[in-house]
Each structure stands twice: as C-alpha cells, then as structure tokens.
C-alpha cells in the first residue's frame, strides 16, 4: 500500500518516534518543536571561533560556522514523503549560550572545551568585548527586562524574492552587486558562501535520492523518488516553477534559515502558493489530493508560522481554494502546526467555520486567529504607515506581525516585567510617611519610565551593532535593499517599528485593585499591615485570603478591570512618549511569551496575595481562577479592553473543555466568541481545546501521549517536550479554565 493516507500514517508514526528521541537528546526544551529530526550518533561540528569570548560574530564568523553546520547535516530523505530535507542543529548552539545547551551537545567534550572562552558572560551571543553595555545592566536587572540585545531572526522575509530568483538568481544578484559596491566585499563574500553551501545541501539530497533509486525495487516508491529528485534538481539553481517545486524550495530555504538563526517566520501560505496551484491544476499536472499531501509534507518538515485568509488593501477577501486545502492538509497530518487564520468581516464565513471545526476536532491548538482590523488600523497609527503597508503586514510570528522584506521589528524579544516595576514602587513608598494608592501609582509610573528608557537604550545598541554581531545572512537574501546596498537588514530596513511587550498585567492590576478595595474603600487593612504581609510573604493567612479574594481583572466591571485599563493607558503613553533616534518607533503590547515562571521568580510578594517567587500572570490573561465559572466571555471582554493599539498584540489565551467543542453548537459558540472578541478590538486568540484525561495522563507520564500538542502561547509544542514545571503551568491554566 502506498496511498497518501497510508504514507501519512507512517509519517505520523515517524514523527512520534522522533519526538521521543528528541526529548532524550535535547532534554526538556519548553519551546517550539521546530520540525527537527534527531541528531545521528556520529554527528559533530567543529565550530570556528573568531573571538576570544568563546563565540563567533560578524560576516566571517557567522558565515564560516553556517557553512560548517549545514555541511555536517546529512541529507534526510524518507520515501514516504514527496519532499525532502530536515534540519537538526543550529548555530546558536555553538555561541556560548551555555545555559541552554542541548543534552547531546554537552556530550561532545571537544566542542565544550572550545566554547569555554575567556569571559564569564551568561550568554555569548552578543559580543560584549566590543559592544559592552555594563552601564545598562543594573537597571535592566532591576526591572527584569528582556532586552532584545543579541536576539535574532524576529523579522519576516519576502518569500517572493526567493520564488522569483531561485538560488541561482540570488547568487547572480549577490555577484552583480559585489561589483557595484566594491567596499562591501566581506558582506557579499559571506552571502555568496552561504548560498553555495545551501546549493551543496540540496546536491547532497539529490545524490542521496539517486542512491536510493538505484536500490529501490518497488516501482511506486521508485517513481516517487524520481519525482522528488527531479524537483530538487529543478530548484537547486533555478526558481521553482511548479507547486511541487515551490514547496520543495521552501523546505530547503526553511532548513537553511533555521540552521542559521532558528527563523520560523513564514508567509501567507494560501495567497503566495495559489498561482502555482492554479497553473498546475490547469495544466493537468496537479490534483487536490496531491496538493494536500505536499502541504502536509511541508508542514511536517517545519512548523513555520504561516498566515491563511485575510483581505487585500481594498478589503477584498483573500480566501481561496488553497486556504481550504491547507486546513485539510494540516488535519491530515495533525502535528504541531503554527497556522494563523487572519479574520476580517469580509472573509469567507465558511472558511472561518472550517478553521474552528478543525481546532475542535483535533484539539491540537491550531489554527489560531488574528484580527485584521485592529492590527491593521493600529499599525497605521504609527508614523508613516499607510493602509497598503499595514495590510502587507502578516501574522507569521509567535504573537507578532511583520511587513515582509521591509520591517525590522524585534517583536517578541523585548519585554518589561511590570510586576517587578510595581515591586520597586512598593519598596520606595515603604520609606515614605504618607502612603496612598495615588502615590504608589505615581512611583510606579516613575519606575516604568526608567525601565522604558533603559530598554530603549538596549534596543538602540542592538540595532546599531547587530550587523557586526549576528548579521542575518540568510534572511538578507529575501529582504529589500540588503543585497542592493550591501547592508545587513538591521542597517537598512524601511521600517523600524519595534515591539515592546509588558508582562504581568493581571498581577499589577489585581494588586492595585486589592489595595483600593481592602485598604482604601473597606479600610479592612492598613498600609503597615500590607507591608508587613509583603515582608513576611503573607504569613498571616487571613490577610492572604483577604487580598486574594479581592475583585480581579476580567471579572467584569470590577475595580481591577478599571486598573487594567488605567495601566494600559499609562503603558501606551510611556512607550509612545519614549524618544527614539533614526526614525525608530516603539510599539506597546502585552505579552509574556512563555516566561510566567521565570518572571515570577524575581518578584517579591505582591498585594494581590501572590506569594514571593510564584509565577506572574500569563500574557494579557487574568490570573487563573479569576472567576468561579471561568467564563471565556468575561476573559474576552477584559482582554479586549486592554488592547494597546499601534499594531502590537495582547492575545486572548483560552482553554476550552472538549465537551463544549464536540458538536456543531460548540463550533458556533467558539466562532461567535472569536468574532465578538475581534469586533471589540481584540488582536489575537490562542485556543486550546484539551482533553482533560489525556492531559493529566500525559502530565504524569509524557511518553504515554507523545502526540499531544498544546498551544503554549503563540506557539504550539509537544507536551512531552515541556519540563515538569512548565507542564504544571499548562495543566493549572487548563483546569482553572474549564
């Protein structure tokens, strides 16, 4: 049997096997699955270090090591697939980020020795010897800031550049501009070597497939391998011409970009691939079943973030037949997919319904939904953004959007923990004689301003030197102006609209709400008693219970709901008020990524009854248990009311009981919730429909359900790959949510 259904079944089984092996090889990752395959036993890379720091930087450092790592990648060909290629390892593993080293790498003594270096930097991804920022560190630490300094790949390529030129065209382009911009030889040499290494990577696949063809006796499999081989040969140099080729080209491109900087940003899959689909169908060389299999294969190779549906600059629906086929394909493979459906009131309603249907049916956290209107209109509020540009901006990141080829947004890599900011304000007021809630808020805003100033300084440092530290050699190939000017995208983007996310909104809103309720209004507690409770970590259980049971954000119309709005206004005003050089603009949002545990660890007890070190709230969500009924509508109302505007997100993350989602009523209820949240101004919705029994079983023993996928935040992950603490967080969130 060699039907598509049989082949998919085999591919799913292989995927489960890989997930279990990867868990052993990598340890707990708490991150996206990435579509990687296990490392083979004899896999080894000898990194080349051009810094005494024990790391490598710049055009030569990044290029040389990219070539070494991709060259070490053996070809991956599975005769059940129509596409080939996988990635296993990435450059960042060799850049001295010793706290996040995979288990398998720790067993390579030679590499570990090389990585020791001379400095004791926590992470060596940034070249602190050349670009130190010791002056910023005290305040960054004080406010628990994720600085974005050393972050990479949080931007989006214009894939059409690659589709039109192919690797050969890109190579010619690099060579052409090297002749023009003679002072940029280092840049062009590095770009050229990267392209040639990718071509070699493709050639190794071709060689491997040929070897397999020679030994294959099954005529069906042989034919499949021959077709696969032809597609690889066609895209090694030339641009892709068919649907099959454009999928294969994308697979190779994604492998290369992942190896370089884990870049997971895709493109509007249905819109960009539709011309290939239409042409091939008309030519009689493609049918829907094959198209679906190819898409499923592409999603299996790499769970890149892809957008579906949406509208064009004239508000016309972009949903096409391929949009439906992508959903069907994702359903057929049903793995950790990062598909985002872009909702607009003009979009095909049947498509939206089908998207929700698959979310309910598979309970694997895909797709998620973003709101065109609020993101587009919000982005247009920034300086110099017209509607056309705002519409081009696509949802192809964890929680973020980007204008392909043009924007350098650093989205999702810069965060300020406002619970820590409150912590500092509380400490200051403790020394003052006249304590009041107004004074506390004033101090909070003063600290927030300082936190934003130091964050902005970090962003500027990053943008100014990123090209000398981690130039985006692969992504540059698919950006505007880069190759033409001989500049890294960090130096020549058309748009520097940089996202800053605030984390811990619910903790801070509920803290102010609890103070206003118990101290100001009811006078049940004095400031001294509150400080005593904060100092002794709520040793007094009655005060603990009193503050914990105060009205909460998202309950609906409470004092803490009002505080959440006030905090949002203050946050937006402070971020937009921060002056930035060179036309850069900051865009506020609320998002903690997956750092609720890590952030909470640094924050003392907070007035909402949260004890020292406990996790902070997740993203823009309320605290778990915010209402007895856990009403998703209440959560939706609350989160819609704290949107920051300007095109950054504050996602609604909800967990649904599968009982709700079993019948058509469930689909209608969820779709209605999505539409209403978006009509109210919401930006992004991540939904988990989880089976309680399965979740609890997998929490006890992850190997029982290696296929269980959960939407952690903006990304989906295999539950088995999460650490026990992280799994607990997902379980708590779910149990509170139902």
């Amino acid at each position, binding site marked *: 049997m060699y039907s598509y259904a049989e082949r998919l079944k085999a591919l799913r089984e292989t995927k489960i096997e890989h997930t279990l092996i990867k868990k052993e090889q990598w340890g707990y990752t708490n991150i996206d699955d990435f579509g990687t395959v296990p490392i083979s036993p004899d896999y080894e890379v000898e990194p080349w270090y051009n810094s005494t720091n024990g790391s490598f930087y710049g055009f030569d450092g990044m290029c040389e090591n990219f070539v070494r790592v991709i060259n070490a990648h053996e070809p991956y060909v599975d005769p059940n697939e129509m596409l080939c290629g996988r990635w296993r390892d990435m450059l960042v593993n060799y850049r001295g980020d010793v706290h996040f080293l995979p288990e398998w790498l720790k067993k390579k003594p030679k590499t570990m020795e090389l990585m020791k270096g001379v400095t004791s930097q926590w992470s060596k991804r940034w070249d602190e010897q050349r670009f130190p920022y010791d002056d910023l560190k005290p305040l960054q630490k004080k406010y628990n800031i994720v600085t974005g300094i050393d972050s990479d790949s949080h931007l989006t390529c214009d894939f059409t550049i690659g589709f039109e030129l192919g690797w050969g065209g890109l190579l010619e382009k690099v060579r052409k501009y090297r002749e023009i911009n003679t002072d940029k030889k280092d840049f062009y040499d590095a770009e050229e070597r990267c392209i040639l290494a990718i071509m070699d990577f493709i050639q190794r696949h071709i060689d491997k497939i040929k070897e397999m063809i020679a030994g294959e006796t099954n005529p069906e499999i042989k034919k499949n391998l021959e077709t696969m081989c032809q597609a690889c040969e066609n895209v090694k140099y030339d641009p892709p011409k068919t649907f099959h080729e454009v999928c294969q080209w994308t697979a190779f491109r994604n492998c290369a970009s992942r190896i370089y900087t884990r870049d997971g940003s895709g493109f509007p899959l249905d819109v960009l691939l539709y011309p290939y689909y239409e042409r091939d169908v008309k030519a009689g060389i493609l049918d829907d079943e094959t198209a679906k299999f190819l898409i499923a294969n592409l999603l299996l190779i790499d769970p890149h973030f892809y957008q579906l549906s949406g509208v064009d600059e004239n508000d016309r629906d972009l949903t096409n037949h391929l949009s439906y086929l992508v959903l069907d394909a994702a359903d057929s493979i049903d793995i950790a997919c990062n598909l985002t459906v872009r909702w607009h009131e003009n979009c095909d309603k049947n498509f939206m319904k089908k998207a929700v249907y698959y979310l309910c049916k598979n309970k694997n956290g895909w797709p998620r939904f973003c709101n065109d209107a609020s993101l587009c209109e919000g982005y247009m509020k920034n300086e110099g953004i017209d509607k056309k540009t705002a519409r081009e901006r696509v949802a192809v990141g964890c929680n973020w959007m980007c204008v392909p080829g043009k924007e350098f947004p650093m989205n999702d890599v810069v965060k300020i923990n406002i619970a820590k900011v409150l912590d500092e304000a509380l400490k200051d007021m403790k020394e003052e004689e006249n304590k009041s809630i107004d004074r506390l808020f004033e101090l909070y805003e003063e600290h927030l301003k300082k936190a934003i100033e130091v964050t902005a300084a970090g962003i500027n440092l990053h943008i100014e030197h990123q090209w000398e530290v981690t130039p985006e050699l692969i992504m540059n190939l698919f950006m505007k102006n880069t190759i033409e000017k001989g500049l890294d995208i960090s130096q020549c983007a058309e748009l520097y609209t940089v996202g800053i996310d605030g984390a811990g909104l619910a903790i801070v809103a509920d803290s102010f709400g609890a103070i206003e309720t118990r101290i100001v209004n009811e006078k*049940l507690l004095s400031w001294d008693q509150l400080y005593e409770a904060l100092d002794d970590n709520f040793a007094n*259980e*009655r005060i603990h*219970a*009193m503050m*914990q*049971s105060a009205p909460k954000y998202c309950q*609906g*119309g409470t004092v803490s709901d009002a505080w959440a709005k006030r905090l949002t206004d203050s946050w937006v005003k402070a971020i937009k008020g921060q002056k930035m050089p060179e036309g850069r603009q900051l865009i506020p949002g609320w998002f903690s990524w997956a750092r609720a545990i890590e952030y909470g660890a640094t924050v003392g007890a907070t007035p909402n009854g949260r004890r020292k070190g406990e996790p902070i709230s997740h993203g823009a969500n309320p605290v778990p248990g915010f*209402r*007895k*009924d856990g*009403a*998703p*509508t*209440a959560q*939706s*109302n609350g989160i819609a009311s704290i949107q920051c505007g300007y095109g950054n997100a504050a996602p609604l993350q909800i967990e649904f009981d599968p009982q*709700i989602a079993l019948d058509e*009523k*469930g689909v*209608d*209820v969820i779709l*209605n*919730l999505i539409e*209403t949240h978006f*009509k*109210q101004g919401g930006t992004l919705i991540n939904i988990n429909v989880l089976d309680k029994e399965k979740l609890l079983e997998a929490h006890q023993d992850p190997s029982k359900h290696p296929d269980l996928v959960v939407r952690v935040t903006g990304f989906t992950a295999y539950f088995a790959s999460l650490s026990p603490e992280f799994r607990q967080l997902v379980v708590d969130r779910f149990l509170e949510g139902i």
Partner: protein
Amino acid sequence: MIKGIVTDIQRASVHDGPGLRTTVFFKGCPLHCDWCHNPECIAFPPQILAYPEKCIGCGMCEEGCFSGAKVPCGKEMSTDEVLSQILLDKDYYGNEGGVTFSGGEPFSQPEFLSELIDKSKAEGVHCAVETSLITYHEEILKKLDLVMADLKIWDDDLHKKHTGVSNKIIKEHFIKLNTLGIPIIARTPVIPEIEQGIEEISAFLHSLENVIQYELLPYHPLGESKRVALGQPKTEFTVPSKDYMKELEHYVFVR
C-alpha cells in the same frame, strides 16, 4: 425597583439552553427533589455554605470570611444589578443565545422575574426560563422566547415522595402552556433508582405540539458537596450508566 434573591450568575453557559447564555439562579423552590443538584437554591432566605476544610482558623468569622470556609449564598439584587451582569455578554449571545432564568424556581419570585424579562427583552436579549411548572403565571410565560420545563416522574405518589409535590398540577400546566405557542423544551432528570415512567412521560409530551424537544438529563452528583456544605445528609443516587441512557434513548425527540 423590585429586588430578588439570587444565588449566582453564571456566564458563558452552554448547558442551559441554546447558544451561549448567562444563567441567573433564583433562590427558593417549592419542590424538594431528593436528587436536586442545586440544593442551595431550595430555601428562600440567604444561607451560608460551610467548607470547613478551607478554614484557616483565624477566629474572625464575624468580621467576614475570606478563605472560602463560609460562603454566603443568596444575595439581594435589584433587577438593574442583574441586568447589568446579563448585558456584559450581550455581544456573545448571537442569534440563539441569551439569558436563562433558573434556580430554584424563578416563578417563585414572579414580580422580580417579570421585570427582569421586560428589561432584558427591551435590550433585545433572548429570554428562557427553567421551571418546574409548579406555578403558572400566564402573563409572564407569554413574554418568554423559550420555556424549559421538567416532568420528573409520571406516577403521582412517587412524584410526591421524591419532590414533595403532586405532579397533577404540573401536567395541567404543561397542557395550558402548550396553548401559548411558545417553544417548550421538556426534560427529565434520569435517576436509575426510581421508576420514573419515562415511556409515559415521553408519550404525554409528544402529544403536546409545542414541545419541540424532549431531553433526558443523566443524574450527576455535583450537588452533593453543596448538600454537605449546607449541613444536609448526602443522597444515595447513582449516575446512570451509558447503557441505561442508551436504553432510554428512543424516548427522546426533537421536532
């Protein structure tokens, strides 16, 4: 403004009628069904639910309990206060959803119920009620978009034994209600220990053309912890097996 006693307002409910609904639980019910899953809604005056396992031993019960060991049950609310809660989710109701007045027995607070329906209808909210039909307020019933009513046991003696009231009047009210032209969803909670006469109930309901649906709701023990919290003895009913529910399946209908 009229005030009433409410035990809880539950939002985003999908089990109390069509679409997504807000359910308002009225306190007080003339029936005393042995298996009641909302036992805190039977008595009319406010009560305290006691959860001693949550007690932190602060000894300050009089000044208010915050630990959840003593939870007040039943709050006097004005119709406007309840309405403001109903309207919080108005955008989510869509074409089918709305508010469901439940309990307890909502018709035991008729003026309060009537004003709440008027105010909700004025806001364009679909109104449904869950009732035992022990009383019959035609003027109020006429205002509703949907009535969900129970016929729990066919035999009158057994009905009296397990609910404290005769079912004769309930059957009469079903017949009268049927003439009003309002869609009715009739239900029976399935208690395996009792000979409920589901066949007869189903046949009776089938003869009423405005009963658009007949549902069987398997008994669930969710009321037990509240019974303990009220200081009442636990009941001895069991959850019907899947097989038993399957046996009864042919009595349910939708039209």
